[in-house]
């Protein structure tokens, strides 16, 4: 029998035995060993051992049966079998004949080599990973910020169907756009255009209003709104329902307000007092609106009907259908299957059709401003939408991409610069059979390793810097750990960055010819350094542009802050008159506060020092151009207002108690003089109303003051008139005594106010603080731009530092030879630094016009703006050069100082 035949025979026998269990080789019955241990072994043993072990066990069993009998053989069998149940036998034996590489073997090798490379060049690795981590962190932070901006207001379910009704009006040839609309527009839209809307809700303006429950008094921001508003905003009701505003004396509270007022007791059906004017019943509690919604500070909603009932002027406007009183807001939710644009076009003339003939000249156009545009597209110029916040979103998106690009450029530069060091490795790999695609894979896996490490670093950086960033950007961004899209985007991010950062080294290094590399004739020529130089120029162009931008933003802020105010806001305290209890207390407050010696002066006014709350028109005077629309900022004040805020008179005099006629006196600002075209303003009689109308009120101008900057510090001051009225006032102004500490004075003032107006909480504002808030947005932009500029220059320098150290290392021998031949340290230093300086100078030349173009564009948005002077560019350029020089010198000086004996000895 040939061996294969024998084998077949045995296998057949084996089959027979196993299946029937009674076969025999020599004619005698063969006892089977117990089954259970076999099964256990089949479960526990590695499959490549199973055959051998079971074979041995069975053979042993038979031998034992013959020796000691079946009973004891079975017993032995158990002991033997159980002896094999050990971890060492359940592991596959590694076959050590030939390796059997799988796909992951090479990957493992790549990673191993990558880790070894990282560990060997710790400095480069730190620069690479650290720089990339910073870049990614910045890009991700900006990404989170942009996401937050784009998701603004999306909390509301009907986000896409909500709009605010707004109007364009033409005044003195210019189209102005405003959200304030007249009351009758609501009824008009309901009656004539009703089928376009699902809900309409009139609203007042949000403001600090006093809510009191028993002894508890709080000033909270809230508003009076139509009964449909909770439905429009799809408020998440925690208690009660969205119909809670249907009754006049009701109120909806946000969860935080309810908590502040009632603590843990159930607020539903409790009566609270609002503004000292009405008692209202709490009918519902809604979840606080998130920070990134328009209405995030709306902490209570009172019914619109209550506003009408408690404010006589509103009731009058409603009853008499006053179309000229633009003092209200109107929010709508569109009917299903209607497009905002179509409806907006339909209601274009809703106001114009109804206004009296003399008001037709304002050409009022009603339109809808969709909620999706509220945040980012809120700018209007001559009736055309001009963007708004979206500019900053775009700006920072670009900055984010650039910062990431800078970090990627560092990575590419350092990798290619080091390529010569790894050329031999590439040569050997190619010689032993790597094909190019494998090398490409290798370098990509290396770059992915670095990117993943950098990503982890970036996550840590973000976690560390998010609170700071939130503070800076005035956001409440949380890290979206649990959001799948975030991780998907991050993954995409890693892929793109890995590809971007790894592409150049991967494609470039893998193209080396092994024969040249291994023979040692390989030299990276001048051309190879070219892309590196271009990349450095790109880096520094971005950095210098950002530096110039930051300087100009800050100069603009400074320039505007130094703008003459026209009054002295030092020590001026403003107290809002939040409830009727404040009125009629002027004299007692004045006496008490003056006796206490804490104030120099007290006055009342209809507007705060940092805003103008009313504009009026309909004035006439001698020599007025009939076509002029007399639109004035109008501020009602009391006698001592001028003294309190420190008016600066150009002509004439202040209001005085000595003249009883001052009740019909008027003070105007410089702009008003120009606007009215008056040659001798003092003494001019101004009529409010038609000249021959008996009801019209006549005022005599008694003084002209320098323009008071109350509204936007970037806009020219509007023509303003000041007249006296002790009733039509909303703010108490105090001028603190200069010889007392502010905190003491405030404490004394609070006690006086508590004594005379016990029903209201004491709240106050410093005029200079309120003025400072007008710069918040610009300062935020400045700070963000500044931070990014610092990061950009940091990243660029990091890359430069790495490159400089690399060049110095590469030219060690050259430097040694030069030194032996007599070059001085200064010679060598300039030799090594020169190249880098040239690149930075080129970057300066490119950056300056780019920065000039964009910044003059930005400044154009401001009426009151700084000049872009040449020294900003020169300064930024010189700054960049100095930073470069310092960075590079660190390495070049080190290289130049090396003893040539050391650098030349190695050969």
């Amino acid at each position, binding site marked *: 029998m040939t061996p294969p035949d024998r084998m077949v025979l045995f296998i057949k026998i*084996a089959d027979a035995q196993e299946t029937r269990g009674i076969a025999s080789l020599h004619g005698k019955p063969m006892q089977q060993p117990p089954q259970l241990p076999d099964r256990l072994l089949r479960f526990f043993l590695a499959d490549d051992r199973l055959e051998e*072990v079971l074979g041995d066990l069975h*053979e042993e069993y038979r031998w034992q049966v013959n020796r000691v009998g079946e009973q004891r053989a079975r017993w032995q069998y158990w002991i033997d079998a159980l002896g094999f149940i050990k971890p060492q036998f359940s592991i596959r034996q590694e076959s050590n004949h030939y390796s059997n590489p799988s796909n992951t073997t090479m990957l493992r090798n790549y990673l191993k080599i990558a880790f070894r490379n990282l560990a060997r060049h710790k400095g480069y690795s730190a620069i690479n990973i650290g720089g990339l981590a910073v870049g990614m962190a910045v890009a991700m932070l900006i990404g989170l910020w942009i996401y937050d901006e784009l998701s603004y207001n999306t909390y509301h379910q009907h986000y896409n169907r909500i709009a605010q009704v707004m109007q364009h009006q033409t005044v003195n040839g210019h189209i102005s756009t405003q959200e304030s609309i007249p009351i009758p527009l609501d009824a008009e839209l309901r009656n004539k255009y009703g089928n376009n809307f699902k809900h309409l809700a009139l609203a007042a303006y949000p403001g600090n209003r006093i809510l009191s429950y028993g002894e508890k008094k709080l000033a909270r921001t809230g508003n009076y709104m139509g009964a449909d508003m909770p439905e429009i905003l799809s408020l998440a009701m925690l208690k009660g329902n969205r119909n809670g505003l249907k009754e006049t004396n009701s109120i909806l509270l946000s969860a935080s307000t309810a908590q502040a007022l009632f603590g843990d007791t159930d607020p539903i059906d409790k009566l609270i007092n609002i503004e000292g004017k009405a008692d209202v019943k709490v009918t519902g509690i809604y979840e606080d609106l998130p920070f990134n919604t328009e209405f995030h500070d709306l902490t209570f909603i009172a019914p619109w009907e209550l506003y009408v009932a408690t404010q006589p002027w509103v009731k009058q406007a409603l009853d008499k259908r006053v179309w000229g009183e633009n003092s209200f807001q109107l929010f709508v939710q569109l009917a299903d299957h209607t497009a905002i644009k179509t409806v907006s076009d339909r209601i274009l003339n809703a106001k114009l059709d109804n206004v009296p003939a003399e008001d037709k000249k304002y050409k009022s156009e009603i339109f809808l401003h969709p909620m999706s545009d509220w945040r980012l597209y809120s700018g209007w110029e001559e009736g055309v939408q001009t963007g708004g916040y979206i500019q900053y979103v775009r700006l920072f998106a670009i900055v984010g991409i650039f910062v990431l690009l800078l970090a990627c450029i560092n990575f590419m530069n350092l990798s290619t610069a080091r390529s010569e060091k790894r050329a031999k490795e590439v040569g050997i790999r190619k010689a032993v059979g790597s094909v190019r695609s494998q090398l490409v894979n290798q370098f990509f896996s290396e770059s992915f390793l670095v990117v993943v490490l950098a990503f982890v670093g970036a996550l840590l950086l973000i976690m560390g810097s998010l609170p700071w960033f939130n503070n800076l950007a005035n956001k409440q961004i949380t890290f979206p750990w649990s959001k799948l899209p975030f991780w998907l985007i991050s993954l995409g991010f890693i892929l793109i960055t890995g590809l971007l950062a790894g592409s150049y080294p991967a494609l470039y290094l893998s193209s080396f010819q092994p024969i040249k590399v291994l023979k040692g004739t390989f030299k990276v020529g001048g051309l190879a350094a070219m892309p590196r130089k271009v990349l450095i120029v790109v880096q520094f162009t971005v950095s210098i542009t950002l530096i110039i931008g930051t300087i100009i933003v800050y100069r603009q802020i400074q320039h505007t802050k130094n703008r003459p105010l026209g009054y002295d806001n030092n020590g001026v305290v403003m107290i809002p008159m939040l409830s009727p209890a404040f009125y009629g207390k002027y004299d007692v407050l004045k006496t008490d506060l003056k006796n206490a010696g804490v104030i120099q002066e007290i006055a009342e006014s209809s507007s705060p020092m940092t805003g103008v709350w009313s504009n009026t028109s309909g004035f006439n005077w001698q020599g007025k151009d009939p076509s002029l629309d007399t639109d004035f900022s109008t501020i009602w004040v009391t006698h001592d207002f001028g003294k309190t805020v420190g008016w600066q008179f150009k002509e004439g005099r202040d209001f005085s108690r000595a003249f009883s006629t001052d009740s019909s006196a008027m003070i105007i600002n410089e702009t008003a003089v120009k606007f009215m075209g008056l040659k001798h303003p003092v003494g001019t009689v101004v009529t409010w109303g038609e000249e021959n109308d008996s009801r019209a009120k006549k005022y005599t101008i008694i003084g002209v003051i320098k323009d008071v900057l109350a509204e936007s510090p970037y806009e020219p001051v509007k023509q303003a008139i000041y007249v006296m009225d002790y009733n039509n006032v909303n703010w108490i102004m105090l001028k603190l005594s200069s010889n007392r500490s502010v905190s003491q004075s405030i404490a004394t003032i609070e006690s006086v106010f508590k004594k005379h107006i016990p029903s209201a909480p004491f709240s106050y504002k410093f005029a200079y603080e309120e003025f400072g808030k007008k710069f918040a947005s610009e300062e935020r932009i400045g700070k963000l731009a500044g931070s990014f500029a610092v990061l950009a220059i940091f990243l660029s320098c990091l890359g430069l530092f790495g490159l400089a150290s690399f060049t110095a290392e590469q030219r060690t021998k050259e430097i040694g030879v030069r030194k032996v031949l007599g070059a001085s340290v200064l010679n060598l230093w300039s030799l090594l630094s020169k190249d880098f300086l040239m690149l930075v100078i080129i970057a300066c030349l490119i950056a300056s016009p780019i920065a000039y173009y964009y910044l003059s564009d930005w400044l154009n948005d401001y009426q009151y703006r700084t000049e872009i002077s040449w020294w900003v560019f020169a300064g930024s350029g010189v700054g960049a050069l100095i930073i470069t020089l310092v960075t590079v010198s660190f390495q070049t000086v080190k290289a130049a100082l090396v003893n040539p004996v050391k650098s030349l000895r190695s050969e």
Partner: protein
Amino acid sequence: MKRSYLGEFEEIVLLTVAVLELQGQAYGVAITHEIIEQTGRSVRLNQIHAALDRLEEKGMVKSEMGEPTAERGGRRKRLFTVTAYGRRTLQEIQEVRVSFWSRLLNPLNLTIIGG
């Protein structure tokens, strides 16, 4: 020369393999029986397998699958052979022992060698 450490038991197993491979019978059960017979120790199959594994890992033996037999239920044996390295190791051990024994039996050699 540095060599892999070989335990006493491993050494015996390796020796047994060297002996049995001459008859082509160096596999688990045979080795076990041989050791029991020669040394009188009670040895279990799993110990032999573990020792053989270790020896193979150290490169002292190599193995291949043999032919199936009936008493094994038609399963194949794993037949071991000693590698050149294994042989050299055995020889070195032997030499070390011989040199010590010779010094023990014939102390004069010490002075001659140390000479």
